[in-house]
């Protein structure tokens, strides 16, 4: 079913569609709140992932830390942070990786220092296509 926010570009929110698609990957990410699960995951990432009913595509995206793909496969960004924290990385690494075009840590910091990504031109897919 279509939603009135579907034309907002580059935006992935947790609704009933992504909820169902991303249920197991999000529950995996959620488990990293627990130290005992983080320990399991450190020992053997693949083996730990195999205890969740995730698709292979989702597992690979986790293993390869492809964050944008994770969102496309149903993960929510607040859940995805758990993986960034697990890696002891600053979130800007994830932000830069997801940005289009991609940005390094410094480039992302620079964009934010200059006031962030401007809203003008970023409100709708139509604006993007005409941009």
């Amino acid at each position, binding site marked *: 079913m279509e939603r009135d926010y579907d034309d907002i570009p580059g935006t992935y929110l*947790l609704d009933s569609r992504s909820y169902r698609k991303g249920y197991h990957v999000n529950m995996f*990410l959620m488990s990293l709140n627990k130290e005992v699960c983080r320990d399991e995951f450190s020992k053997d990432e693949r083996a730990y992932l195999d205890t969740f009913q995730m698709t292979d595509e989702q597992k690979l995206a986790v293993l390869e830390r492809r964050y944008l793909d994770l969102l496309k496969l149903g993960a929510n960004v607040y859940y995805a*942070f758990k993986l960034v924290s697990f890696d002891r990385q600053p979130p800007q690494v994830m932000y830069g990786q997801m*940005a289009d075009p991609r940005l390094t840590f410094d480039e992302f910091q620079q964009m934010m220092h200059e006031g*962030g990504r401007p809203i003008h031109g970023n409100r709708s897919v139509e604006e993007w296509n005409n941009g």
Partner: protein
Amino acid sequence: MANLIAGMGTSHVPGLGVAIDNGKTQEAYWKNLFLGLEPLREWHRANVPDVNIIVYNDHATEFSLDSYSTFTVGVGESFKPADEGWGRRQVPAMQGHPELAWHLIESAMIDEFDLAVNASMDLDHGFTVPLSVAYGQPSEWPTAVVPICINVIQHPLPTALRCYKFGKAIGKAVASYPDDITVGIWGTGGLSHQLGGERVGVVNPEFDQQFLDNLTRDPLANTRLSHTDFIREAGCEGVEMIMWNVMRGALGDNVTEVFRLYHVPVSATAYGAIILENKKRRNEQ
């Protein structure tokens, strides 16, 4: 009768907590922001209520897809800072105020708010960062708290209007509380931010400042915004601003804005803070 003295709105970006915890507030990245926050901290030093009702959201910490409620009120005797993935934040435990929490629940349920009651939830940065912003690094927090967790992550969310009405119900409950205590209410989260996707990093100062202006002058204008308005204009996670409507709804119709700060960037977000005193209180003094 309890007296609701004022409301505060503040973003709750985790980076703020990291900066405070690690003594970085005087570093170049943070210096101006914390300088700007000095008057807010001054106000809090002079205005310590008995209880703060703190409206926040959980970030995949205590609540998950398995079980998510729209409005959750914490009735615990005390609350621990949560392990969000890197161990518990080293800040004092938060003392609850079960009497006020239950009174609020009993009053708002009669007013047809369908609440969830929770005694054991750990509180994540959405809750603990605003405490640090207001009170710094004390050995224990100066007030008891009633945590109110709002679902602003898993759609469908409560509407901006519903949040405002919930605030009204909270204000009514505080006014009918039998004990003679002082109460503050905080709305947290926001302002502009989008943390995921190709559009990550969106900031819309015009929208944010209009939202802040409306809080003081025309709070109902902020209740007419749809979730899609927030998401489109202020980023996917900018919708957290609906929690400020709860804070605003709890206050009286007339408020005095005694503090405002707007600063870009904090991490990937626009930081905003506001303090609104209930006019009634000023007149009484």
